[in-house]
C-alpha cells in the first residue's frame, strides 16, 4: 500500500515536470533557426504557396494559439501532424518507439546481467589477472564510439564470418510479421510467428551487442566497487569467520548490498542508451525512434520534435521511478 502511495505521488509529480517540458520544447524548437515549411516546398513555390502550407499546419496562427491548440491536442492524445510526411505524429511514434525500446531494453538488460556477474566475480578476485582483464575490457568497450564499434561488428559478424544477416532492417519482410507493438520480437511471439522470431532475434544480435558493450562499463565498475566495499566490511568478515557456506555468503551478504547503487545508475545508463541509438540505428538501418527524432530535429519538424522530447522526458521519469522502487526493495534502510 505504501509502495502504491509512493508511485501515485511520484506520478502526480510527473505532471508539472512534463508541463515544463512541453512549454520549453514548444518555445525552444521555434527559437532554433530554420523554416520547416520551406523544406517541404518545391523550387517553384511562391510566398503564396508557403503561406498556404503554413496555414495547412496551423503555423500562421499566433504563437499562443498554436500552443493552446497543441495542448488541446495532447489532452486528446493528438500529437499533431508531421510537416515532413503529412502523417499523424501519434501513428508515426507508435511505429518508431517499439523497435527502439526493444533494442534499448534488451541491451541494457544484457549489460546489467553482464555487469552483475562480472562485477561480483571481478571483486572476489580483486587485483588478480582476471580482475584486471575484466576492468580493461570494460574500459575498452566504454572508450569505443558506438558508430565505429557497430561498423566493426558488421564487418566481422556479417561480412567476414557471415553469421548474422545484412544490416538492412529489423526483420526479414518475407516472414510476413504482423506489426502489433512495433517491437518485432514481441510481435513475433504474440503472433506465434516462428520464422519472424528467429529473424528478429538474428537482426537484434549485433545492435544489442554494440549498445550493451558501450554501456556496460559504468555498470560493471559500480557493481565491482560496491562488491569490494562489502567484501571488506566488518559484517561480511564476521559472516566469513563464522564459516557460512559460500553460496549463503554470496546471496545473503554480498549480492544484495552490492547492487544497491545499481538501479539509479542503470536509469542513467538507460537514458544514455536511448541517445546512443541514434547512431546505432543509422549503422544497422534500424529505422527506430532515434532516427525519426533526429530527422525531425534536422528539418525542424515541430510536432515530431515536441513529441519525441516529451516521450524521452516521460521515459526518464518512469525509469527513475522504477529505479527508486527497486532501490527501496534492495535496501531496507530506504523507506518509501
Amino acid at each position, binding site marked *: 500500500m505504501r509502495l502504491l502511495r509512493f508511485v501515485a505521488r511520484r506520478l502526480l509529480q510527473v505532471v508539472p515536470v512534463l508541463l515544463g517540458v512541453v512549454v520549453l520544447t514548444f518555445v525552444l524548437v521555434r527559437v532554433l533557426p530554420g523554416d520547416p515549411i520551406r523544406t517541404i516546398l*518545391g523550387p517553384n513555390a511562391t510566398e503564396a504557396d508557403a503561406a498556404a502550407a503554413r496555414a495547412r499546419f496551423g503555423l500562421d496562427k499566433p504563437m499562443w494559439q498554436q500552443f493552446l491548440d497543441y495542448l488541446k491536442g495532447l489532452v486528446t492524445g493528438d500529437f499533431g501532424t508531421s510537416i515532413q510526411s503529412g502523417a499523424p505524429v501519434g501513428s508515426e511514434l507508435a511505429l518508431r518507439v517499439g523497435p527502439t525500446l526493444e533494442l534499448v531494453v534488451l541491451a541494457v538488460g544484457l549489460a546489467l546481467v553482464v555487469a552483475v556477474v562480472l562485477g561480483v566475480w571481478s571483486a572476489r578476485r580483486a587485483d588478480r589477472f582476471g580482475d584486471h582483464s575484466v576492468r580493461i575490457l570494460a574500459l575498452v568497450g566504454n572508450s569505443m564510439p558506438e558508430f565505429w564499434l557497430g561498423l566493426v561488428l558488421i564487418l566481422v559478424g*556479417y561480412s567476414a564470418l557471415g553469421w548474422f544477416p545484412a544490416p538492412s532492417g529489423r526483420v526479414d*519482410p518475407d516472414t510476413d510479421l504482423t506489426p502489433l507493438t512495433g517491437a518485432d520480437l514481441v510481435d513475433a511471439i504474440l503472433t506465434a510467428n516462428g*520464422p519472424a522470431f528467429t529473424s528478429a532475434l538474428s537482426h537484434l544480435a549485433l545492435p544489442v551487442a554494440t549498445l550493451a558493450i558501450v554501456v556496460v562499463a559504468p555498470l560493471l565498475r559500480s557493481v565491482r566497487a560496491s562488491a569490494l566495499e562489502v567484501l571488506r566490511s566488518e559484517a561480511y568478515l564476521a559472516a566469513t569467520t563464522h564459516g557460512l557456506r559460500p553460496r549463503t555468503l554470496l546471496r545473503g551478504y554480498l549480492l544484495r548490498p552490492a547492487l544497491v547503487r545499481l538501479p539509479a545508475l542503470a536509469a542513467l545508463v538507460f537514458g544514455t542508451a536511448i541517445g546512443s541509438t541514434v547512431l546505432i540505428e543509422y549503422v544497422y538501418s534500424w529505422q527506430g525512434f532515434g532516427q525519426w527524432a533526429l530527422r525531425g530535429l534536422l528539418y525542424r519538424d515541430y510536432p515530431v520534435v515536441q513529441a519525441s522530447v516529451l516521450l524521452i522526458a516521460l521515459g526518464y521519469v518512469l525509469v527513475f521511478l522504477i529505479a527508486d522502487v527497486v532501490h527501496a526493495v534492495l535496501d531496507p534502510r530506504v523507506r518509501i
Partner: protein
Amino acid sequence: MADSSLSRSGVSRRSVLQLGGGVALLFATGACAAGSKDSGSGGKSAGPATGTLRIAVSSYLSSWDQDFVGFDLTALMLYKNVFPYMIDYGVTDAGGSKILDTGNITPTFAESFEPSADQKVWTLKLRQGVKFASGNELKAADVKWSKDRAFAAQANVAGVYRTIGLTEASQVQVVDDYTVTFTQAFPSALTRQIQAISLYVFDSVEARKHATTDDPWAKDWLAKNAPTGGYFNVTRATQGQEIVLEANTGYPGPDPAKAATIRVTVVPDGSNQRLQLQNGDIDVALGVGQRDIADLKKTDGVTVVSAASNEQVAIQMSVTTAPFDDVAVRKALAYAVPYEQIIANVYGGDARPTRSLVPLDMPGYDEAGYPYTYDVEKAKAALGGRTVNSELVFETDNDTQQRIAVLVQSEARKAGIELKLTPLDPATLGGRRQQKNIPLQLTSGQLWVNDVEYMLATSFVKGAALNYSNFTNAEVEQIYEQSHTTVDEAARLALWKRVQEIFAAEVPWVIICQPNFNLPVRSSVAGWVQPMDGLARLRYLSTSA
C-alpha cells in the same frame, strides 16, 4: 516457494538456470544462423533470384502523396515508377551510356499529347483499357481530379504549372472519357517537359472513397497508401525497411518494366550498402559515397556505371552581401578556385569541367558563358591587392562539399580571400537562405527540366526559390519574360546566348564542375538509363543472375 519445491524434487535452482541458459544459448545461436539463412542475406549468399532486383536506398520515403511531399529524393524516384505518368522522356545514347532524352518526350500511359496550332491548348488522349490495381479504368475524370487536387494543394505541381501559364483548375477540362484539354494562358516551349514531370494520375474513384468533409482530397489516406497503375505496383511496404515493387503487366505503352520484382531496401549508411553489394545481397546501391565508389571499381562482381550527368556543383555568391556585392571580388574568387584540383582530388577525375552556368548538354550551352580558369595572379589583380573576409557555407555531413570547401579555402587565401568554413544542417541552411544572408555557399543539384527558361525561373530571376545569390538583372528579367512565349528554337538559343554573356560579366556563381553520375551495381545488372532529372526509371533495369 518455488525454491523449496524445486529442492524437494531434487533439482537445484542452479541446475535449472544452467539448463535454461544452455537452451537459450542454443536457441539464440540457432536463431542467428536460421535468421541469416532465411533472410538470404547472411554471409556469402548466392545472389539474387532471376527477375528480382534488390536496390538499396538511403532513406524510406516520407509519404506516398506526391502533391504534398517535400524534397525527398527516394519518394520522388519511387513516384516516377509507381504513378502512371502520361508522358515521359525517351532514351538516347551519349558517350557510350544511355541517358533520358529531354528533347524527345513520348506518350507512355497516354495515347497522345499534342498542341493546337497556337500551342496554347494541349489535348491529352488516354489509352483505353488502362487499369489501376483496384480494377478501376484510368479515365479523363481521374486526370481532372488529380489536377484539381494539385491546384488545391498549392504545392509542387501548382508551382511548376505557373511556368507554362496554368494557374487554375478550370484550365483543365474533360472532353470525354478519354480526352482532357489543358488551356494555357500562353504558348510555351516548356509544356512537354513540365507535363513530363507533372502529369501523374491518381485512382480518383478509390481516393474519393476515403475523402471526408475535413479531408476532401483524401490526404490522410493517400499519404499512407501507395499509388497504383504505374510501371510497377507496390505489393508490400514495410515501414522504414523495404518496398516491394511488382511489374505492372497491364502497362499498355512502350518500354515495359524488365525486372519482374524490385525490392527497394533502406540502408542509410553508405559503407553498409557497399558491404552488401560486395556480398551480393543487393544489386544496386543508390547511396554510396565517392570514396567507396572508388574502391568498388576494383571489386570483383561489381561494376560502377558511369554516365554523364547535368548535376552542377557551384559556389553561389550573394551579389547583395559584402564583399561579394563587388563584381571584382566575385571575379577574384572565380579565378582562385582550383577547378582541376577539385575534379582530380574530390571526384577522382570523374567529373566534367564546364564553361558556363548553363549546364553542359542543355540546349543553348555556350563556352563563352564562364571565361574563368584557375589563375591566382589574375585573382590577386582582380582584388587589387585587397584582402577580404567571408564565410563559405556548405551542408553538414556532406563529405564531398566539405572537401571542396577546404580546397577552395586554401587557394582563395593565396589570392587574398580569407574564408571561414561554416557547415549548416538542412533547416538552418534553409532558414539562412530564406533570410538571404549567406555570402557564399556551395550548392549541388540538377534541374528537373533541361531548359534555360526553367533554369532562369528557378535560379536567376527575382524571387526565384534557388536564387541564393540574390541575382537580379533587368535584361535577364526581360529575356525571361520574352522566353515564355518564344517557341522558335533558334530564337530561344539567341536569348540563351545573351543570358550567358550577362552571366560571364556579372559572375553570380563560381561554376566548379559537373560530376559524372556513378552507380555501383552487381555485374549481372544491365539497362541503367541516366535520368537527366535525377529520378531513376527502374523499368529499364534487368538482371541476368
